C-alpha cells in the first residue's frame, strides 16, 4: 500500500494538543508524521487545503443488524454509511439474532467485518445471556474475541442485583458497562415522551423519570462496585445532572448523547410520523437544552448516533406499531456542527474530542489520535460546505430518518481507515 500524505489541512488532534495547518503522513496504515511540509516519495497526495483534518471519528453506538436482520442493514452497508458519515470506527450493539452474548457471535461479527466492512468494527457484547437480564454472558471470552464493552442495549438490565454482578465482573476484565437506561415498568407501552404532546396526540408516554431512576440506580452501583459505567443516549436533563454528580464524586461514569437528542424535542415531531419515533424518545425542549448544556459542561463527553435502521414497511404503520429507532451515521457531523459549533456553544476542538479521544478513552481502544504510530484513521471534514441530505442516496439499507432533505453547513469530506481512503464526497 502506498503512503498517503494529507496536505495543508487544519489538523486538529486534541489528544496531541495540536491545532494548526499541517500535513499528515500515513505509512503502512500507521500515522508516521504530523508536521509542516512533509514529503514522502511515491505517496498518494490528498489536498486538504481549507479542510479540517482530525483523527478518525468513532461512533460507539450503532446497530448493524447482522447477524439476523440483514433486511434492515448489514455489516457492509452499515460500515459504508459510517464511512459516508465520516466515521472510521463503529461499535455495533449486541441486539442481533442470535444476540452477541458469546465468543462465537463476537468472532463471527469480527470476521464478517474483516471481510466486508470498510471501517473498523469493535463489537459490544451482551451483559446477560440473550440479553434476557438474568444470567451473565461470557464477558471475558467476548473481550478476548474483540468486544470492547458490554451492554444489553434496548433491553436494560432491570434486576439491580444482576447489574451489580455484571459491574463487578466487568471491572475484573476492565471493560466498560453501557446501559440503555429505561425502567421498563415506568415506560411500558409508551410510544413517545410523556408530556403535553403525548396527551394531545393520545399516545402513551415514556416519562423522563423512567430514564432517571435507572441512571440513579446505576450510578449508585458504579460507586459500590468501582466499575467503568457509561450511560447510552442520555436524553433527560435530570439524568445529565446525575452524571455530573457522579463525576464530581470521582466515579468512572461517562455518558453519550445522540445528535437527535441535542436537536429535536417532542414538539418538533410531525404527528404520528414514525421517522420521529425512537428510544429514548424526543423529550421536552428543557431536556434538549439540558443535554446540550451537559456537552458544554463536560458531563456528557461523547456523541454517538444510535444508528438504528428499520425497513420501510416496518416504519409505514400505525405509530404505535412501528419499531423504535432512526438512522444516524450520515448526518451526525452536520447536526453536531449546527447544534454545538456554529452557534458558539463549544469550540471545534471540543467537537473533535466528542467524536475521537473521548469515546476512545471510554472504550479503552487505541484510536482517536493522530499521534505517531497510531492507526492511520483520519476524518476530513468541512465546517462550511453546504450540502443537503438525501436519504434515498444513503448507503444504509434503510430510510428511516427525520432529517431527509435537510440542508447542513459543514460535513464529512473524506474518510481514511488504516491509511486507505474508503469514502470521499
Amino acid at each position, binding site marked *: 500500500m502506498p503512503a498517503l500524505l494529507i496536505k495543508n489541512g487544519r489538523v486538529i488532534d486534541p489528544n496531541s494538543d495540536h491545532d494548526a495547518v499541517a500535513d499528515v503522513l500515513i505509512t503502512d496504515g500507521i500515522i508516521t508524521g504530523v508536521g509542516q511540509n512533509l514529503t514522502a516519495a511515491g505517496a498518494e497526495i490528498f489536498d486538504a487545503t481549507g479542510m479540517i483534518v482530525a483523527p478518525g471519528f468513532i461512533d460507539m453506538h450503532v446497530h448493524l443488524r447482522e447477524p439476523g436482520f440483514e433486511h434492515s442493514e448489514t455489516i457492509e452497508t452499515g460500515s459504508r454509511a459510517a464511512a459516508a458519515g465520516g466515521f472510521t470506527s463503529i461499535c455495533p450493539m449486541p441486539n442481533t439474532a442470535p444476540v452477541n452474548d458469546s465468543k462465537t457471535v463476537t468472532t463471527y461479527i469480527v470476521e464478517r467485518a474483516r471481510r466486508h466492512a470498510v471501517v473498523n468494527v469493535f463489537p459490544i457484547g451482551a451483559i446477560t445471556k440473550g440479553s434476557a437480564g438474568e444470567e451473565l454472558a461470557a464477558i471475558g471470552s467476548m473481550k478476548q474475541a474483540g468486544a470492547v464493552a458490554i451492554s444489553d442495549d434496548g433491553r436494560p438490565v432491570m434486576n439491580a442485583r444482576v447489574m451489580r454482578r455484571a459491574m463487578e465482573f466487568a471491572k475484573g476484565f476492565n471493560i466498560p458497562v453501557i446501559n440503555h437506561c429505561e425502567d421498563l415498568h415506568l415506560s*411500558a407501552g409508551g410510544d413517545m415522551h410523556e408530556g*403535553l404532546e403525548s396527551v*394531545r*396526540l*393520545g*399516545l*402513551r408516554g415514556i416519562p423522563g423519570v423512567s430514564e432517571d431512576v435507572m441512571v440513579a440506580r446505576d450510578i449508585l452501583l458504579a460507586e459500590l462496585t468501582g466499575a467503568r459505567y457509561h450511560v447510552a443516549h442520555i436524553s433527560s436533563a435530570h439524568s445529565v445532572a446525575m452524571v455530573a454528580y457522579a463525576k464530581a464524586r470521582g466515579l468512572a461514569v461517562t455518558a453519550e448523547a445522540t445528535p437527535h437528542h441535542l436537536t429535536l424535542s417532542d414538539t418538533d415531531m410531525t404527528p*404520528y410520523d414514525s421517522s420521529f419515533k425512537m428510544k429514548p424518545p424526543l423529550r421536552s425542549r428543557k431536556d434538549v437544552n439540558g443535554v446540550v448544556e451537559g456537552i458544554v459542561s463536560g458531563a456528557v463527553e461523547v456523541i454517538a448516533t444510535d444508528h438504528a435502521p428499520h425497513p420501510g414497511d416496518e416504519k*409505514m404503520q400505525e*405509530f404505535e406499531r412501528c419499531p423504535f429507532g432512526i438512522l444516524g451515521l450520515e448526518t451526525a457531523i452536520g447536526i453536531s456542527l449546527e447544534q454545538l459549533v456554529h452557534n458558539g456553544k463549544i469550540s471545534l476542538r471540543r467537537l473533535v474530542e466528542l467524536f475521537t479521544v473521548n469515546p476512545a478513552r471510554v472504550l479503552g481502544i487505541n484510536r482517536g489520535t493522530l499521534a505517531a504510530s497510531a492507526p492511520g484513521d483520519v476524518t476530513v471534514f468541512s465546517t462550511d460546505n453546504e450540502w443537503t441530505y438525501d436519504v434515498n442516496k444513503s448507503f444504509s439499507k434503510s430510510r428511516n430518518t427525520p432529517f431527509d432533505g435537510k440542508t447542513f453547513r459543514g460535513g464529512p469530506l473524506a474518510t481514511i481507515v488504516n491509511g486507505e481512503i474508503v469514502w470521499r464526497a
Partner: protein
Amino acid sequence: MRGLLDIESLTRPEIQAILDRARDFQVPPGQPVKRFDLLRGRMVVNLFYEASTRTRTSFEIAAKRLGCDAVSITAQASSVSKGESLVDTLNTLGAMRPDAVIMRHAASGAPHFLQRHLTFPIINAGDGTHEHPTQALLDARTILDRGAKLEGLRVAIIGDIAHSRVARSNVYLLSKYGADIILCGPPSLLPRELKDLAPGVTLTTDMNEAIRDADVIMMLRVQLERQHEAAFPASEYFPFYGLRLEHLKLAKPDVIVMHPGPINRGREIASEVADSQKSVILNQVENGISVRMAVLERVLGGEKNAGAAH
C-alpha cells in the same frame, strides 16, 4: 378533497357551518324522516377496526338519508385478520374508488398517518385515545338545541379523561367557543398536562367541585379495554366518580347530562340519572345522524354528477 380528521385543526367558522347545516337535517318530533338526494351516486366505505354499533350505524343511516351508498367493513370480516397491513388495506379500498372512507381505529393517529399517503378523504370515526370529531360536533349540536350558547358555558367532563377521545374532541371544540371546561377524574387518569390542551380548561379530582354550577355534565364511559394497568381500583370508581342524583343539586337548575354511550349503569352513571329529565343521551344519538349528514355533505360536496366517471 379534505376529510375530517380532528376538531383541533378546524376553525370555529368551519365548525359552525357544520352545526348550522346539521340543523337542516334534523327530524322534528312527530314528523316522518325526510330523505335527501344530495349525494346520489356517491359511495362511502365504513371501515371499522374497532367494534362499534352506534357510530357505524349512525354513519350508515346518515349516508343513506343523503342518497349515498354505504358499505361497511369490520376488521374481523376483512383481510385485516389475515395480516394485511393498514396501508395495503386502504390502498386496496382506494382502488375501488370510494368517495370517502369513514374509519375507526384503535391506534391514535391512524387516520392522520393514512391521509398523508392516500388521495381520497378520510373521516375519522374515532382514533384510539386521540379524537372523535363527530362526537364533539353532535354534542355541541345537542347543547345548542337547548337554547344555550357555548360561550361562557360551564361544562364538566367527568371520567377517564386520559383515555378519552371524546374528551379531547370536546375540549377543542368547546374551547374554540370560549366555554369553561372542567375536566374531572381519578388523579391517575387525569394527566396534569391536560390543563394546557386548550384555553379555558381547569382540572379537578373532586366531583362536587366539577359539578358545582355546571350547565352541562358530560359523563365518559369507563374504558376498561384501554387501561393497560390498574390505574384506579375498580371498586372506588362509582363511589367517587359515578354521577348520582344528589350531584345534580350542585349544578345549575337547567343542567343537562350527556353521555357518548354506551352507558354502564351503576358504573359511571346511576340509572336514575340516565333516565331523568336532565338526560339528553337519546337526543345525542339522534343528532349523531344529522351532524354526520352535514359532515358527509361537506366532505363529499353536493355538486358532482351521480355516477360520473373518475
